[in-house]
């Protein structure tokens, strides 16, 4: 037990070891798949192997006759009961979307879509019986390629008559926040510099380590649903709305959740169907996905084409930026699918003072797994494209890439700054972060080494990549969300219960799944109430305990949820005040609260908050007309986004003979505002970095021509390992947010947003003397090798991802195996 003497003077800012760890390092964990209830049945899904097909018949008789199978349910069986899965974001008033049943009834629109489910007494028996469900399909023409989808000659959903879901435009001239981009482009064409590029944001898979799982108990008064979700409060509302269960009869629990990264920000078909399974059988039912199922049918991320036009003067001052996107929705609109690209709409201008800006995006349907939130959501795409463009501009003008950024960025004395995309950045210091990053990185030394290797014609060349970024996070002011067509709000809720023994329960509406809220919230409350860190218990993730909440995503938990906790703590202090005054026989006006004690000014009379809590518990001596409770609730709705920023520098070694890339050094300085726990912040940065680096170098979800996901296991979907990665040099500058009392900005997505362009810029920097100005992501050795030899480097992955043997080989093998 930590003694008072060892206690830091302030909890906020200290590197407290995490409260959460003890359970997790000893295996005393409660993952959803651990839930076992009397008579529990197991659900397994039958999924379409075709990207687009009509279901002509389903024969379930063999599956029904299999051992211990309780029921087999098809889409036709539940067509009236299953409702439609929600899209919560009307990106444009005329947004088009197909109906989205949890289980396909007569047509499937992507490979992996559910067509039937088997309910059996064991998971193994359910999976065995899935193989016995005989589904006949009539294949339909499928559209998979995003640019082909934009042509509209093959339709993902013929009934819609179009592949275009929405066309979103943000133009600074129309908004009155800047000038005309077309005029800037014209001027640059005649007398300045015009850079035109097209970038591909490949499709990615969130790939959280804990596969999704849902367990439903229909036997209590409330339907109890455990789910491996980031958003238990959303799931509760949608079970009510979609399945017609009164909300008050639904309890959702997100127990220990093994990562999410946006991938568990969803109301899933499997959640709806497991509820239906439990309702139909009257028994507890559980569904846990296999990894292949997860990669194929859990929502994907990114998948855009980005057409960029940057206009500048010859001195490097940018005069305008035009962004034209094609964004792949996949086959359906999930919870926030349609607005993901737009979360980047205001971020392409990044940290720069561009006078004119236009953004447009065409949201298109294809016959593929739907896309939705993945760490960074819209902002990594924006940061990638603009940071690649700034490097291209620097190369064109033959100046250092940091110098070109300096010429255009907002200077620290110019905050608050109204941007060309209509946001107001409250604080930041790009100069300070960049200076610190350059030192940490050893920028000048590495540049010198690069020059030496270039001169010597070393087969291993060095590339240095720069990425300066900002993001809008802390989702989000509710009023702003409403204006943008989102059906929900962006507030967060917290409650504090003062227990008679002086312990404190903090209830948060955020739903952590690795972020360490139990520790960080305890630090905030310990400081505010003057109670020991160990005496604070943080409760979350159960809608019967955390009764109100909007959960965890978009780097919002601290900037929004932490503020709600702070507000609830302040209310407790205020509520206890008249009672403390009464007990001290003093006037409320003479009381001051410091270090957990109320004292009477000018005397040594004090009473601790814990003592007041006990007095309230027995309520023997409470002032007249005062409620005997110290408990408080608070809901915080932010007035503005927060804007973390940072400078990331990456050095890679590129073997020009093999195309292989090795990370040499990575240094970054992030400004995430005030830091509550530096240990947790560092962890968030490290993990974010690797996810962003991984997009640059390794990951891609690849479909074959028929729409089958060929990277549907961890054998083929390349998650990096310890052996692929390096240790990082990270540091911070602190420009407190001025829009919340904690001064915090958010750190969950920073690393992922900034690192991808840093790495690709480094790869391109290494190759630029060889005439290479782009390599498509992921920058595989094959692409780099071809780029060096003038053979491209920007061709799609599909071919390379196919099995490398010919068809006669395959036939022989399968015959040999007696298939």
């Amino acid at each position, binding site marked *: 037990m930590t003694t008072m003497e060892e206690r830091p003077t302030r909890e906020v800012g200290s590197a407290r070891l995490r409260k959460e760890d003890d359970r997790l390092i000893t*295996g005393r964990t409660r993952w959803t798949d651990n839930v076992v209830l009397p008579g529990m049945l197991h659900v397994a899904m039958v999924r379409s192997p075709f990207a687009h097909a009509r279901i002509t018949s389903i024969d379930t008789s063999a599956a029904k006759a299999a051992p211990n199978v309780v029921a087999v349910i098809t889409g036709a069986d539940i067509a009236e009961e299953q409702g439609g899965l929600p899209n919560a974001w009307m990106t444009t008033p005329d947004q088009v979307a197909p109906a989205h049943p949890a289980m396909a009834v007569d047509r499937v629109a992507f490979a992996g879509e559910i067509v039937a489910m088997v309910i059996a007494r064991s998971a193994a028996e359910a999976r065995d019986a899935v193989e016995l469900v005989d589904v006949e399909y009539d294949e339909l023409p499928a559209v998979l390629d995003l640019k082909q989808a934009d042509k509209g000659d093959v339709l993902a959903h013929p009934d819609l008559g179009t592949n275009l879901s929405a066309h979103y435009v943000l133009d600074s001239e129309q908004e009155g926040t800047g000038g005309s981009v077309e005029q800037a482009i014209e001027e640059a064409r005649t007398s300045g510099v015009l850079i035109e590029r097209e970038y591909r944001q490949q499709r990615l898979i969130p790939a959280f380590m804990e596969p999704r799982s849902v367990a439903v108990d229909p036997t209590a008064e409330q339907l109890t649903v455990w789910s491996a979700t980031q958003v238990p409060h959303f799931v509760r509302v949608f079970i009510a709305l979609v399945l017609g269960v009164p909300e008050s009869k639904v309890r959702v629990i997100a127990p220990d959740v093994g990562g999410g990264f946006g991938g568990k920000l969803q109301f899933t078909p499997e959640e709806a169907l497991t509820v239906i399974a439990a309702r139909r059988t009257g028994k507890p039912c559980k569904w846990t996905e296999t*990894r*292949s199922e997860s990669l194929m049918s859990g929502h994907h991320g990114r998948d855009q084409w980005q057409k960029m036009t940057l206009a500048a003067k010859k001195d490097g001052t940018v005069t305008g930026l035009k962004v034209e996107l094609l964004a792949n929705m996949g086959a359906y609109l999930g919870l926030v699918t349609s607005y993901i690209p737009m979360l980047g709409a205001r971020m392409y201008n990044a940290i720069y003072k561009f006078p004119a800006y236009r953004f447009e995006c065409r949201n298109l349907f294809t016959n593929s797994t739907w896309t939705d939130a993945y760490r960074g959501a819209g902002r990594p795409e924006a940061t990638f494209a603009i940071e690649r463009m700034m490097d291209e501009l620097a190369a064109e003008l033959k100046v250092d890439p940091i110098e070109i950024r300096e010429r255009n960025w907002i200077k620290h004395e110019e905050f608050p700054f109204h941007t060309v995309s209509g946001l107001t950045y409250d604080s930041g210091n790009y100069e300070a972060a960049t200076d610190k990053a350059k030192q940490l990185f050893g920028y000048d030394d590495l540049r010198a080494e690069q020059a030496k290797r270039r001169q010597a014609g070393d087969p291993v060349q060095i590339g240095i990549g720069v990425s300066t970024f900002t993001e809008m996070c802390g989702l989000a002011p509710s009023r702003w969300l409403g204006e943008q067509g989102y059906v929900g709000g962006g507030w967060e809720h917290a409650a504090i219960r003062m227990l008679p023994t002086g312990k404190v329960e903090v209830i948060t509406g955020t739903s952590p799944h690795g972020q360490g809220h139990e520790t960080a919230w305890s630090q905030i409350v310990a400081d505010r109430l003057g109670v020991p860190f160990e005496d604070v218990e943080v409760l979350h993730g159960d809608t019967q305990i955390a009764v109100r909440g909007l959960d965890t995503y978009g780097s919002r938990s601290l900037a929004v949820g932490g503020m709600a906790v702070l507000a609830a703590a302040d209310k407790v202090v205020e509520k206890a005040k008249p009672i403390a005054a009464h007990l001290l026989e003093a006037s409320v006006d003479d009381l001051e609260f410091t270090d957990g004690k109320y004292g009477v000014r000018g005397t040594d009379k004090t009473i601790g908050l814990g003592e007041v809590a006990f007095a309230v518990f027995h309520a023997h001596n409470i002032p007249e007309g005062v409620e005997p409770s110290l408990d408080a609730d608070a809901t915080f709705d932010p007035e503005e986004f927060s804007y973390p920023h940072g400078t990331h520098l990456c050095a890679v070694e590129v073997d020009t003979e093999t195309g292989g890339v090795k990370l040499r050094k990575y240094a970054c300085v992030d400004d995430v505002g005030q830091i509550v726990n530096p240990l947790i912040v560092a962890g968030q940065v490290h993990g974010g970095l690797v996810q962003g680096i991984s997009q640059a170098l390794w990951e891609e979800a690849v479909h074959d021509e028929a729409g089958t996901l060929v990277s549907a296991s961890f054998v083929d979907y390349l998650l990096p390992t310890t052996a692929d990665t390096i240790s990082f040099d990270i540091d911070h500058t602190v420009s407190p947010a001025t829009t919340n009392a904690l001064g915090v900005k958010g750190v969950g997505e920073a690393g992922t947003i900034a690192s991808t362009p840093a790495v690709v810029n480094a790869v391109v920097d290494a190759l630029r003397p060889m005439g290479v100005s782009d390599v498509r992501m992921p920058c595989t050795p094959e692409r780099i090798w071809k780029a060096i030899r003038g053979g491209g480097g920007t061709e799609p992955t599909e071919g390379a991802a196919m099995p490398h043997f010919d068809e006669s080989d395959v036939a022989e093998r399968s015959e040999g195996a007696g298939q």
Partner: protein
Amino acid sequence: MTRINVTVDGASYSDEVEPRMLLVHYLRERLGKVGTVVGCDTSNCGACTVHLDGRSVKSCNVLAVQADGHEVTTIEGLATDGELHPMQRAFHEQHALQCGFCTPGMIMQAIDLLNDNAKPSEEQIREGLEGNLCRCTGYHNIVRAVQAASGQQPAEMSGTTEGAAS
């Protein structure tokens, strides 16, 4: 069904199992050892790593019947008399876990690594943990935890100085 006799975390068990049952399913479903988890179906992720007679195995890659007559240690059997194993303590102290799903397998593999090589270099640590995936930490602090558990001073953790928040 086949009868097996297995010692798991120091206790003896005797069970009838289907020959196709994987060790990880036996541990989770029959013994309630749910601290060991399943993260994939291709033996890539290593989340299910346990020790079989003191050597690390991916328990999704071993049949329960193969454990007959052998001794299994899971993450739940590492702490003795309420004392954490030094590797568990190192993971906690170096913030080498976030969501914690890969952690049991990662810790079991890290212990095996040090059993083979008591003072591994960073490169040897990185090679030794290659079969275990983590999506949260970027591996940075996992490497540091193994360095710490092997009695080597991990590199200064950058960005975590008290001053950072002042």
